[in-house]
């Protein structure tokens, strides 16, 4: 496949790794990287961890240095938003009024935070996705608020709670599910996560939703569905993300909770997608998925880039074992694979009581997942076994 140019929309992790990978595959055409944020590509995980804690400055977040950008010869267009795409004419519309003809297109526009209705313009209410969000929240934490209320006990919420707590602030976490992370990790492990919060002095409310966030211009309190009221100076809303696909409406590409791709990450002729915005059938798990993890953005960015360089006949399916980590307090939680609440779960090392363990998940006789609390070595070893497709019985018997 001979291409003159490749345009990448979304100048973050997936987009940048895609660009780098094109050069590593000796693609010598023009690469244009278009991103709506004013910042050069930066890393998001520290935004809820070291950067929010005040331990790291902005300079530590860069995903790449100016020398590398120059070496790769990328045409970087920051502060520019794509507002439309027409697949039949292969034309991209930008918010600066310019239209761009594209040859290969890689979509990596990621996702943005869901908000609580009615809080969009309220002072003291934050979401956390970008550098500007984290900087604003960090200043609010610097001011020493009386109480930080985190709505949503998912990974981002838990990390914010952990960071705020480590800064000596009073923290409440409100989770609508019976346990935090219950949908991902199941209730038993979710209960362990709740215990980790409580052990660090966080006030945790589970199984109850938020009725309203009150305040006159500035947040004052959070009212829960069961009538409880929590005074709040800062509220952080961590209730999930939605993929950034609005700009593709009417483009001719299929959109359904993400950009719909085939098994090889192809969304249309000469168009691929990667990272938090991409939905594709992962044949290894026989499941159509959209993965919101750092490692996936890196791997899928590279895969989707390479896909634009090969002919259809040579295209390979993208079949990763998804993996992510989350740092909460002194726990490093890692999950590899795809797990469901009804999978068989067995602890293979450590125990839930110590909150240091590795748990394996089996389905239909196969190893499908491994979860570790402070067990990185085990997670990576078992991840390799998932890649090899071993049976659950063999995994349980394996010497790891």
């Amino acid at each position, binding site marked *: 496949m001979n291409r003159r140019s490749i345009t990448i929309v979304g100048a973050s992790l997936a987009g940048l790794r895609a660009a780098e990978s094109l050069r590593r595959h000796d693609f010598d055409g023009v690469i244009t990287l278009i991103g709506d944020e004013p910042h050069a590509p930066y890393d998001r995980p520290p935004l809820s961890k070291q950067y929010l804690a005040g331990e790291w400055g902005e300079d530590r977040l860069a995903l790449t240095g100016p020398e590398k950008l120059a070496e790769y010869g990328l045409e970087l267009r920051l502060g520019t938003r794509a507002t439309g795409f027409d697949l039949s004419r292969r034309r991209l519309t930008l918010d600066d009024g310019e239209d761009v003809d594209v040859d290969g297109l890689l979509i990596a526009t990621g996702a943005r935070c869901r908000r609580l209705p009615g809080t969009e313009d309220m002072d003291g209410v934050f979401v956390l996705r970008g550098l500007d969000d984290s900087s604003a929240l960090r200043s609010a934490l610097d001011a020493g608020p009386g109480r930080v209320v985190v709505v949503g006990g998912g990974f981002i919420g838990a990390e914010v709670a952990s960071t705020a707590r480590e800064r000596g602030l009073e923290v409440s976490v409100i989770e609508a599910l019976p346990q935090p992370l219950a949908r991902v990790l199941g209730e038993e492990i979710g209960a362990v996560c709740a215990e980790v919060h409580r052990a660090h002095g966080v006030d945790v409310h589970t199984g109850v939703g938020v009725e309203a966030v009150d305040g006159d211009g500035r947040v004052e309190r959070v009212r829960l569905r069961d009538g409880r009221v929590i005074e709040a100076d800062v509220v952080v809303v961590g209730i999930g993300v939605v993929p950034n696909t609005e700009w593709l409406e009417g483009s001719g590409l299929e959109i359904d909770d993400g950009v719909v791709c085939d098994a090889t990450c192809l969304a249309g002729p000469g168009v691929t997608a990667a990272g938090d915005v991409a939905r594709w059938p992962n044949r290894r798990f026989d499941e159509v998925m959209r993965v919101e993890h*750092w490692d996936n953005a890196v791997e899928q960015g590279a895969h989707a880039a390479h896909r634009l360089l090969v002919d259809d006949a040579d295209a390979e399916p993208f079949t990763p074992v998804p993996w992510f*980590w989350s740092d909460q307090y002194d726990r*490093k939680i890692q999950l590899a694979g795809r797990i469901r609440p009804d999978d068989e779960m067995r602890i293979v090392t450590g125990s839930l009581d110590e909150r240091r363990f590795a748990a394996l998940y089996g389905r239909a006789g196969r190893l499908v997942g491994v979860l570790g609390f402070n067990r990185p*070595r085990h997670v*990576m070893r078992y*991840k390799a076994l998932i890649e090899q497709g071993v049976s659950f019985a063999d995994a349980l018997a394996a010497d790891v």
Partner: protein
Amino acid sequence: MKIVVDYDLCESNAICMAIAPDLFEVRDDDFLYVLVEEPGEDRRSALEECVQRCPKQAISIAE
């Protein structure tokens, strides 16, 4: 080619070990050990992948 790990950044999540078990190992003490400090050129692409995939950007290559 020499492997340089910034241990202040490394958080022992063992991604590098998953990619190149011959070069990196996270042991039961949860510390990362570099098994071969100066690997041969044939390991360059694996090592480059480690550099890219390390979520902490803790690995670099000294020529």
